[in-house]
């Protein structure tokens, strides 16, 4: 019994380690982070367009996700990670790292401001995502390059 438990634990550790290795490359970590933000925006846009019913929890979770991502996102741009894994990161990120970090922080601050007075209905969510989208664009304008 104990043996089985040890094997199971070892397997779990191995699987966990495997998952960590696969997602360890900073290019892939940050791509996943951006996908989470896209998912959060999509969840709110579904409500804003009336495709989904208003749900305060969905809105809160989405904004919290955006806030969390913005806090650690710039940590995944170490020197040398400007190529590989289909990254669309512009070399300008490393030339202007302070500005890049400031833009990430601005997104977090914006999400927190909206969280503080949570949009209470479909129209409120619609009014919130417009400015958020502009913040996304302001950073992507300078720091993301399409490569294919």
């Amino acid at each position, binding site marked *: 019994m104990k043996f089985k438990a040890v094997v199971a634990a070892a397997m779990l550790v191995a699987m966990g380690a495997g998952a960590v290795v696969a997602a360890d490359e900073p290019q892939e970590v940050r791509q996943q982070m951006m996908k989470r933000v896209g998912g959060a925006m999509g969840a709110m846009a579904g409500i804003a367009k009336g495709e989904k019913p208003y749900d305060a929890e969905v809105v809160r979770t989405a904004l919290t996700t955006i806030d969390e991502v913005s806090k650690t996102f710039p940590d995944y741009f170490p020197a040398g990670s400007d190529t590989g894994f289909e990254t669309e990161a512009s070399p300008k990120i490393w030339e202007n790292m302070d500005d890049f970090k400031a833009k990430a922080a601005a997104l977090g601050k914006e999400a927190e401001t909206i969280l503080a007075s949570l949009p209470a209905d479909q129209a409120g969510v619609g009014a919130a995502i417009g400015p958020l989208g502009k913040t996304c664009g302001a950073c992507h304008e300078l720091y993301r390059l*399409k490569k*294919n």
Partner: protein
Amino acid sequence: MVSRVAKASASVIVLGLGLAGAFYLATAPDALPESHWAGLGVPDLENGRRVFWAGGCASCHAAPGAKDDERLVLAGGLPLKSPFGTFYGPNISPDETAGIGGWTLAEFGNAMKRGVGAAGEHLYPAFPYGSYIRATDKDVNDLWGFLGTLPKSSNVAPPHDLPFPFNIRMGIGVWKFLYLTDAPRVALADADDRQKHGQYLVEGLGHCGECHTPRTELGGLIDAEWLAGAPNPEGEGRVPDITPGSKSIGSWSAGDIASYLETGFTPEYDSVGGSMVEVQRNMAMLPAEDREAIAAYLKAIPAR
């Protein structure tokens, strides 16, 4: 007695002069006559505003970093990098000395549709008259009226920074001879009115092909690869294919494209990036029917 050698030399000289003359005629600035621009009437300023945003004037002529209403001050100075050197957007505010307030409609119209400046000189095709040549005279007149209502700026933009031979404007005449045409970029069979309007906006005012279509060595757009994507003229990366064959937007519906132009969001809620951010800001200022027309046209053109 005139020698045979002398006669032969004379023939060569005459032939040479003839060729030089033909070359001059083919490549000299070719402005439309003053009369072409007469009788267009009082400009429709609201339509002029629409032409202004469709044409993306603010993207190159507003001061670098201008936001919101500042984008209506066409002070110039924005650098536009290209493989031929760096161009600086000129001041086109209504200021009489620093801007184009002293110009006539005919001078403005000839800049827009013939690439000829007020002094009769060739303008560089970084100013996309190769697209604007498709604009109607009415739209040019309305835009001219609208530009006159904008604030004046006394800013003097830097001169273009171009290496030899691109600093010789005569070369532009050759470029025009080879590439300047108002013919449609693609033939659309049985196009409906919406698609035709989209064609007018995309091939003309919107000048989408200037970045989304690859160019020859001499800087002419390659019609066979219309909107098929091209290297980013400003450096690294690529400007994407936007035909129905595109890996990125080929699967989008016309509604997805119109929505992207309005909100800056892709169907997956990724956001617009790069130079397209500025373009999308302009497109968002247009009436919905214009964005729908652009989308309808982009779905109708040949896949690349």
